[in-house]
């Protein structure tokens, strides 16, 4: 039986959002913008807590709500951050927003990555495109608690250099010597001196050892498909691999019906699933 | 009509198609329900009687990739023709089995009077239910009273004599149509407000309509274009229906399926019949009456248009 998380905002009236304001907009790629939000109610901001992998609903009142992964780390208490790719009516409207604009937010929702269970393990992260958003939160959380985890290897890919998000973070990750981070692109550019190649390929070349490790992957479906194959090839078992699912959501609390995969609701039983859980689900992705 | 003609016809058509759309009897409902016949054995269950109320043409656009046979009453054939005219169905992938139709009975009304699932039998011009019987013309669907299409427009194979039908009886003059006709414009405004206050936006009207081919992207529901809000209330629901009716101009064959499908009994045909009448008066066009005529709102006639005013 699925349980509805009763933390944070959800403890109140789940369908009633909190007012928030945009403090900063970062143009990540031509199609992706990152929005930093602050709750209008300072008390709410102070009390807000979540874990990496959780999601939120951001709405422009009048245009509607849309679901996004929280891309800021839990340690970031000044704001919460969503990275938004322009695809539909709501995201197009969000892309018109700028700092100072008012929005409404329901967060956090869903099950996070089980990071507490990963303590002492090596962590492998493979992200693609906008799928890096929850992994950014996760990676920053791991770095915040660097001592709790073993070796951290991360690869982040996009189609072209211009499609890679989080430029500032990437620089830092590349600079740090306590993680191995590679940004890669499917097709290069004269200005691009980094890795060229698809995520699964780069991942295999990094050859992370599966013993006492977990792997987390998130990105476009086709990338996930091949990354899972690579991880299997590398010797990762289904319960060592985690990913996040994306479905159309409305309520975010397991009621409205549309995000279920079989008996599991992505909004409350997910979005984080282990590959083992995923394989137990009916094939309706 | 006896099944002696229909079943062999279906079997014959099955030789060249993947599936035949027809009817079979539902034990639970006591009337005909749509059925698909893939094999000659299945075809033995086929029936045609005055409870074969559904317009099976609605399934044709949904079966885009198969060769399909379809059992069609005269009115259904008009929907098929219109679907061909609109480019939604290609003529060469369908085979039409025409049936001689004595008119179909208003099953919803019958059920309301006698209870759902009570067996309805049609024999000797009378409809027998629950030990009672009424003359068939007293319980026909409204469209059958004004039927001009007893002989199907297109027939590949006739199951029975589709040319020798008796003309339909005139409709009863005491119904909702007459009440509506007598209303003032203000009363009609009130009337529709009240009718649409029941609408639950289930879109059965749309889904049951053979010619509502936009289906999944229908602008009764979209935000782009945002003709109508999503709220279920009289105002939004009426606007949503106006969207549909406007799109049915020159397309509606008057098959009455939308009204039959409506679970809350909104008399949609009052509007569609009026619109069909206007279209016919202005452009001498009846949707589905001919494979050659161009839908009137997709063309114009410099010489005749404007003479109306």
């Amino acid at each position, binding site marked *: 039986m699925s349980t509805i998380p009763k933390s944070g905002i959800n403890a109140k009236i789940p369908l009633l959002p909190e007012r928030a304001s945009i403090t900063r907009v970062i143009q990540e790629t031509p199609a992706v913008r990152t929005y930093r939000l602050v709750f209008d109610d300072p008390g709410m901001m102070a009390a807000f807590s979540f874990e990496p992998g959780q999601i939120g609903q951001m709405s422009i009142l009048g245009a509607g709500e849309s679901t996004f992964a929280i891309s800021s780390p839990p340690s970031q208490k000044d704001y919460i951050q969503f990275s938004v790719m322009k695809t539909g009516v709501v995201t197009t409207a969000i892309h018109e927003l*700028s700092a100072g604009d008012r929005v409404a937010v329901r967060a956090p929702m869903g099950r996070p990555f089980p990071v507490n269970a990963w303590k002492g393990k090596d962590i492998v992260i493979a992200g693609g495109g906008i799928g890096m958003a929850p992994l950014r939160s996760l990676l920053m959380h791991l770095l915040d608690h660097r001592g709790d985890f073993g070796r951290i290897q991360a690869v982040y890919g996009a189609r072209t250099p211009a499609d890679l998000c989080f430029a500032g973070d990437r620089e830092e990750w590349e600079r740090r010597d306590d993680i191995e981070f590679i940004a890669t692109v499917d097709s290069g550019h004269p200005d691009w001196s980094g890795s060229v190649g698809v995520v699964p390929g780069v991942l295999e070349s990094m050859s992370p050892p599966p013993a006492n490790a977990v792997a987390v992957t998130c990105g476009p479906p086709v990338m996930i498909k091949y990354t899972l194959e690579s991880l299997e090839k590398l010797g990762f078992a289904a319960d060592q691999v985690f990913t996040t699912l994306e479905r159309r959501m409305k309520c975010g609390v397991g009621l409205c019906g549309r995000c279920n995969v079989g008996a599991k609701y992505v909004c409350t039983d997910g979005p984080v699933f282990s590959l083992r859980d995923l394989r137990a689900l009916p094939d309706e992705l | 009509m006896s099944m002696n003609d229909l079943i062999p016809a279906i079997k014959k058509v099955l030789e060249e198609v993947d599936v035949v759309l027809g009817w079979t009897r539902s034990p639970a409902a006591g009337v005909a329900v749509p059925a698909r016949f893939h094999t000659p054995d299945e075809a033995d269950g086929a029936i045609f009687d005055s409870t074969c109320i559904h317009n099976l043409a609605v399934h044709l656009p949904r079966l885009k990739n198969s060769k399909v046979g379809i059992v069609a009453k005269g009115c259904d054939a008009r929907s098929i023709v219109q679907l061909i005219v609109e480019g939604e169905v290609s003529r060469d992938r369908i085979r039409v089995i025409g049936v001689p139709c004595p008119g179909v009975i208003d099953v919803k009304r019958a059920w309301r009077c006698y209870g759902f699932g009570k067996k309805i039998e049609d024999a000797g011009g009378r409809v027998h239910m629950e030990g009672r019987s009424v003359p068939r013309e007293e319980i026909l669907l409204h469209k059958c009273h004004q039927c001009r299409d007893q002989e199907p427009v297109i027939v590949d194979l006739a199951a029975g004599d589709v040319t020798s039908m008796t003309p339909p009886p005139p409709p009863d003059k005491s119904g909702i149509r007459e009440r509506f006709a007598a209303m003032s414009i203000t009363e009609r405004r009130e009337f529709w407000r009240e009718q649409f206050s029941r609408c639950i936006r289930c879109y059965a009207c749309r889904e049951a309509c053979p010619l509502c081919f*936009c289906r999944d*992207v*229908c*602008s009764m529901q979209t935000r*782009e*274009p*945002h003709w109508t809000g999503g709220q279920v209330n009289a105002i939004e629901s009426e606007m949503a229906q106006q969207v549909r009716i406007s*799109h049915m101009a020159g397309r509606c064959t008057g098959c009455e399926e939308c009204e039959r499908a409506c679970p809350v009994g909104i008399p949609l045909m009052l509007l569609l019949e009026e619109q069909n009448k206007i279209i016919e008066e202005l452009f001498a066009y009846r949707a589905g009456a001919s494979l050659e005529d161009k839908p009137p709102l*997709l063309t114009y006639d410099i010489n005749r248009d404007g003479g109306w005013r």
Partner: protein
Amino acid sequence: MIGVFVCQCGTNIAATVSTDRVVQAAKSMLGVVHAESIQYTCSDPGQRAIIDAIQQKGLTRVVMAGCSPRMHEITFRRAIGRAGMNPFMLEMVNIREQCSWIHSGIDETTEKAIDLVRKGVARVRRQKPLQPGSSPVARRALVIGAGVAGIQAALDIADAGIPVTLVEKSPTIGGNMARLDKTFPTLDCSSCILTPRMVEVKQHENIKLMVNSEVEKVRGYIGNFEIDIRKKASCVIEEKCTGCLICQEKCPSKAPDDFNACAGESKAISIPFPQAVPLVASLRKEYCRLFISGKCSVCQKVCPADAIDYGQEDTVVTEKFGAVVVATGFGLYDWKQSYPTYGMGMYPDVINALKYERLLSASGPTGGHIERPSDGKEPRDIVFISCIGSRDESVGRPQCCSIGCMYMAKQAILTKEHIPDSQSYIFYIDVRAAGKGYDEFARRAQTDFGAIYIRGRVGKIYPRGGKLVVMGTDTLAGDQVEIEADLVVLATGLTPAEGAGGLARRLNISTDGQGFMAEGHPKLKPVETNTGGVFLAGACQGPKDIPASVAQAGAAAAKVIGLLSREEIETSPMVAEVNQLKCTGCFKCRDVCPYGAIENQDAMGGQVAHVIASLCQGCGLCNVACPPGVISLKGYTDNQLIAEVVEVLR
């Protein structure tokens, strides 16, 4: 981030609209971060203020409330473009032509202005940045009509190195000017001025001349017209004919002399006048014995060049043009039905001025000797009557013919020169002589040539003893006037040339109440039309004299040269667009598209619609024909229009 700028237009708007109240109201509209009122937004400081506001406040959308978008939309698009915005993120709200100028109460006018601004804000909020497309330009111009305006335009364009096709309906070029004897106010010989230009046309390497030809069908759009031109059969092989005139001499079939305004007679096969260009005979079948009775082939027998081909058929030439100049000129008002008291044409000595011009002309049927039509006698008393079918509401023709006063003076002067003992009487309403040297010229008719000017209209003309009695009123003296005249010349008004209406229709040019073609804007686009790439020259646009026609022709030519000197032209971005994700492939859009701009495309796992942007002209028919509305006209989307409706009614 919307900015609203409310133009006061001096007092044009501010007199009846409280622009302050409009600004206040605008400030409360959603998304509006800046609103101000500016005295003249279109002025340089006005535009500067707009640009400053855009840059300082970071505006992303602009609403301009002021004059009609048809006036200054382009101006303001450029202005916001200079400020770094997408030029299409602009909405113009018309609070002048359709608001301040037509209402008087300041409250109701202001309230309406606020409604309109709210509508504009709602609309611009839903506007998306648009990028104009481009399409290649066909480097050839079409000039329709080869009177003085068409000739001028064709030569100017051709001289710039651009190929021109010059189409003329009649067998020769020259138009009405070729029929004139002298021109006012200099009394230059008309043909001495025009004939060399006509020859130049014939000889110009960049001009393809097509006489006996008419435009039949027009497709395409600015830069890319595709036009069918029908060349009517003349039974004469143009390349062979030497213009020797033997055929005309020997032809036994008489025919009216159109060129001479029927002042004389011509033949079924003829060359209209000796200076005709091309100097080629043509045969009018309707008067030819061969075609009437089947017996005759005189011309074929006598032709030394073997140029006669009775079996010749019409040919249709289809060519691509980047631009079109219409110079179809004028016709004369047919006065006979409207002025019954002038004899309805029964008195042969009541003639129009063009016929009189031919009687004056040395190349005319009388060799320049004035002979009145009834008996060939030289007239002594000649009455000119002005404003026949012009400035006359009673016959539904209120406009001024703009040349009548001047040519009456000219003809009175010429008359005196031809017949020194003659007396001209001129009935006039006002003498309009506003051009350079015109008034002096008109006065000379009185002072130096003794013409008697009588202010008033003529009530009746009737014959008496071989003369015509002209009864009129001298409204200055307040007397009835009766003049016994030998000849009466009517200064008839100008109409569009025959067939101009059909041509206007084919080219999508609107016409005014009299049928003259409408310019794009009376002040700012005097040679443009509402159809891009189609320009006007000469009297087809409205009555005008030779210098004005030539000037307009030059202006039209300059526009054409400007247009065709580009390899590509910018096309409007307001074209249709398909959301292929939602297209059901019903192709109703394709069925109604007047431009064939929608094609099938294999995408999304099936056949869906696709708009060929370079063909789309942005009419929006497809948008309405698409039931789910997934093809939308950019800049006029359903949601924009819905928002306008909703907001203006709030």
